[in-house]
């Protein structure tokens, strides 16, 4: 079976700096990979490569067996939660529709019925049909984020990329978002690459962790990667990983790399 993602010897340089190199990663259909690491370690850059927006400086990348292509419908993308302008003149179903064909040039007359059906199906998958006709700006952050997921799912993607989709959502909303993504993965075998600062909300669904620090990385199951030994090696300082009930707490790493009061 073709892997959803195949990276081999992948390297990215930006502004004269190598973000990471020698990255080999195969992601199987239906696999959930969580990408962790401090700011500037190249997590979002990895998503840009997979979206076809940025080329590798070395190595190869395949998505669904082919080089990544801009605007590919088989790759869904969920961005960080950021409230839309309250007066944005779009309804929920328009926002979702833009995810389907918003990048296409040319007149929009063809396939209207088919388009409406797919938008409806995507809205159904995130239980958003009830307020699909409301202006997006009037919806809560959690509701907007559900629409974002529908927007990513409407192209029926084999791969779903998420960039900090839980940021600024409360715990209940975080759980809803994770459940919706998990449901999609279970029911459609969609592979997920989930970039986050916070592993715990996705820990129960995570198959493997890709942990990036300063050009170094480790790949493995949460139990393999999230150990004091591995993270101390990565951060090149003493890091302690503590398990409290079903949560993993990392002490020492983020303290050093993220200045207090800085960007989340």
């Amino acid at each position, binding site marked *: 079976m073709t892997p959803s993602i195949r990276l081999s010897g992948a390297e990215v340089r930006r502004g004269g700096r190598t973000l990471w190199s020698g990255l080999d990663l195969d992601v199987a259909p239906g696999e959930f990979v969580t990408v962790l690491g401090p700011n500037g370690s190249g997590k979002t850059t990895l998503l840009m490569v997979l*979206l076809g*927006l940025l080329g590798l400086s070395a190595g190869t990348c395949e998505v669904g067996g082919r080089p990544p292509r801009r*605007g590919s419908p088989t790759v869904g*993308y969920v961005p960080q939660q950021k409230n839309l302008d309250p007066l944005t*003149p779009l309804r929920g179903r*328009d926002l979702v529709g833009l995810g389907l064909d918003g*990048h296409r040039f040319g007149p*929009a007359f063809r396939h209207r019925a088919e388009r409406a059906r797919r938008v409806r199906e995507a809205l159904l998958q995130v239980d958003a049909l009830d307020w699909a006709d409301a*202006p997006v700006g*009037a919806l809560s952050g959690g509701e907007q984020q559900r629409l974002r997921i529908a927007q990513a799912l409407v192209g029926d993607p084999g791969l779903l990329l998420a960039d900090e989709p839980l940021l600024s959502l409360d715990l209940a909303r975080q759980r809803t978002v994770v459940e919706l993504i998990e449901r999609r993965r279970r029911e459609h075998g969609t592979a997920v690459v989930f970039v986050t600062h916070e592993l715990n909300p996705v820990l129960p669904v995570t198959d493997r962790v890709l942990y990036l620090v300063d050009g170094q990385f480790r790949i493995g199951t949460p139990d393999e990667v999230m150990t004091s030994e591995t993270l101390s090696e990565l951060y090149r300082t003493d890091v302690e990983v503590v398990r409290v009930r079903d949560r993993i707490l990392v002490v020492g790493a983020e303290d050093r790399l993220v200045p207090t009061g800085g960007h989340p």
Partner: protein
Amino acid sequence: MTSTLDLLSLDFVRNALIAGVVLAVLSGLLGPLVVGRGMAFSVHGTAELAFAGGAGALLVFGTDAVGWGALVGAVLVALVFGALGQAQRERDAVIGVLLSFGLGLGVLFQSLYTGRSANKFGLLVGQIVGVDVGDVLALTVVGVVVLVVLTVVHRPLLFASLDPDMAAARGVPVRALSIVFAVLLGVTVALGVQIVGALLVLCLLITPAAAAARLTASPTVATVLAVVFAEVAVLGGILISLVAGLPISPFVASIAFAIYLVCRVVGAVRARWGRVAVATG
């Protein structure tokens, strides 16, 4: 009643009405995007530079060149605005700087011009009766070109305008579209300046779209409504101005404003009755 019908049989009135129809279609199509991109101030700035360009052309080349002068002024400055980033403060400041400079230039050119004063004021307050067959033809050709371009880029443009980060992630050329839109806007503003005048181009490009946004959050419905509102304002304004023998712009502006007020009230009433219409804000 007879006087109105008599008016309609005159060539220059027919030319004026055709010009008005084309201009209103373009304004109604672009308006919702202008409002969605938060570019009202850019439109005003572009109009002042179209005024400067038109006034300069009038001074140097005479009345026939006014349209071209306005077009050059508007498109040049629209390109600058289009290339500006999304940072609101920086944009506002640059627009303010160029707008005042353009207005100053325009006033200078007008002061130096020694021809008919109607030619001068036309650019500021509109001069619909000056539209001849050649103008109508040029306007229609430009209108068709703008329409074709808009048909091709409309979806990505809407995406890039209202949801820019996501559009960029989906590979939409956000920056290039911003420049394409600026040119479409510049062309439309230049045409508008010659008909309703530089001071009131906003009432065609902004007011109908802002009114429509009070009634619906659907981009398609909003565009259709904006075109209808712009047509009512322009055609109504032309007819009243001809009957009253006064400049066109106050009537266009008043009709557009009345439509806006009605839409606000209707929108507010619907919101109170719990119908989901638009965000209050």
